[in-house]
């Protein structure tokens, strides 16, 4: 008897774009605040960024119900870690935890496209980029979500070393200043908003550095 197929899907895509850029002593994490389904907008004011630890912020696009569940799992695991080790988790440690959590549901994945940004134990900016099932890599910058295909080539042009063949290997973290990186992020989002229907309304930007956390917000096209 041929296999029957379900007439419903457990997943939905709520759209949106996330970006993170690592600097020498700072990290910028940004995400738009539009939540949509199909051709409709659910809300113009939804935060896709979650603080997992003092120095780790995760931005996730995809199915927001799965994202919420994932954020809860990671937050509670971090709390347990704090009780057991009497300290906050470092960003690379949180990165590994996120990867393991995602792979744990390898055969019924979290429909979440994540970007983890923060400061490592030396105070340098670090960005980790993930797929839906936990494959991850430390990079200098990353974009995920519906506008990622529009933003990544622009960041490659502005931030990437010309080629990995060019030795000595250029360091992943960008030499740009914090203000320049924030300007770059705002430009990325306003450009992506022009051409991607799922990105818009406003962009929430988090800047992490030695002195703490800063929030910035920029209005985007609402059509």
């Amino acid at each position, binding site marked *: 008897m041929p296999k029957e197929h379900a007439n419903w899907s457990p997943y939905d895509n709520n759209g949106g774009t996330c970006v993170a850029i690592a600097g020498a002593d700072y990290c910028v994490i940004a995400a738009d605040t539009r939540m949509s389904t199909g051709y409709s907008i659910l809300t113009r004011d939804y935060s896709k960024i979650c603080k997992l630890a003092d120095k780790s912020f995760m931005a996730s696009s995809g199915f927001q119900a799965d994202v919420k569940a994932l954020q809860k799992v990671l937050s509670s695991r971090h709390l347990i870690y704090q009780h057991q080790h009497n300290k906050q988790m470092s960003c690379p440690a949180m990165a590994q935890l996120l990867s393991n959590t995602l792979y744990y549901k390898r055969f019924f994945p979290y429909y979440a496209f994540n970007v983890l940004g923060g400061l490592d134990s030396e105070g340098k900016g670090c960005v980790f980029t993930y797929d839906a099932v936990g494959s991850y890599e430390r990079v200098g910058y990353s974009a995920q979500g519906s506008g990622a295909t529009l933003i990544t080539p622009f960041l490659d042009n502005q931030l990437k070393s010309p080629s990995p063949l060019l030795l000595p290997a250029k360091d992943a973290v960008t030499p740009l200043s914090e203000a320049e990186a924030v300007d770059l992020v705002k430009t990325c989002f306003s450009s992506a908003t022009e051409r991607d229907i799922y990105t818009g309304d406003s962009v929430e930007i988090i800047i992490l550095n030695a002195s703490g956390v800063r929030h910035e917000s920029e209005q985007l096209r*609402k059509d």
Partner: protein
Amino acid sequence: MSTEAMDVPKGFSFDLCRRNEMLTKKGLKSPGYLKTGTTIVGLIFENGVILGADTRATEGPIVADKNCEKIHYMAPNIYCCGAGTAADTEAVTDNISSQLKLHRYHTGRESRVVTALTLLKSHLFRYQGHVSAALVLGGVDVTGPHLHTIYPHGSTDTLPYATMGSGSLAAMAIFESEYREGLTRDEGVNLVTKAICSGIFNDLGSGSNVDVCVITKGKKEYLRNHLTPNPRTYISSKGYTFSKKTEVLLTKITPLKELVNVVQVGGDAMEE
């Protein structure tokens, strides 16, 4: 009526359908169509008809054209808004517009909206819905102002106010709340603009600017980009530079080895 202008074309050839179906079953993604997403509206006011449209054209989730024209010319006194596949709306309105012109030459009279309606609906019915064009047709002729909607399969409605496209519900919500008979020109234009804006901001398939067309007896006003409520929000003050050339990574010159060593021993080489 002469038959040359009204010759029935042979229609689509469906020969490749079975092969295309087999390929999609094997996993080949078929090429997408440029859909206009769209919010288009029309309403009748005291002196004529007002048509409105947004200006965004989408290809799936990407905006292909931020400022396209969706209000098409049919005749000096008739305009048509189009939603659905952009190529289809463009082609069908151009085609029927040409047919109307030839008909005007033949009869010596101004075109009537019902003529355009019949030509469009016959064309769409003949193609059994494969021509994906959903239209809002409006104009003023000797019999008065007219407004019609035409669906891709060829059915039509005659209405005092109408909306079509993915943003039609958002726009109709505005019309149903605020439409009344005998609106003045300014009230009509404002209502149409409000309805299109509702589509632009609440429907992801519609966006950018508002186009309006006001048609009255003997006069038409095509207000292209009547409202532009979506300017680019952030422009970096410092600007960005892009290198003009491809980066040179490595330069390696390998001289080609000589195959033949020609040694000249006195006198011409060619001589015995």
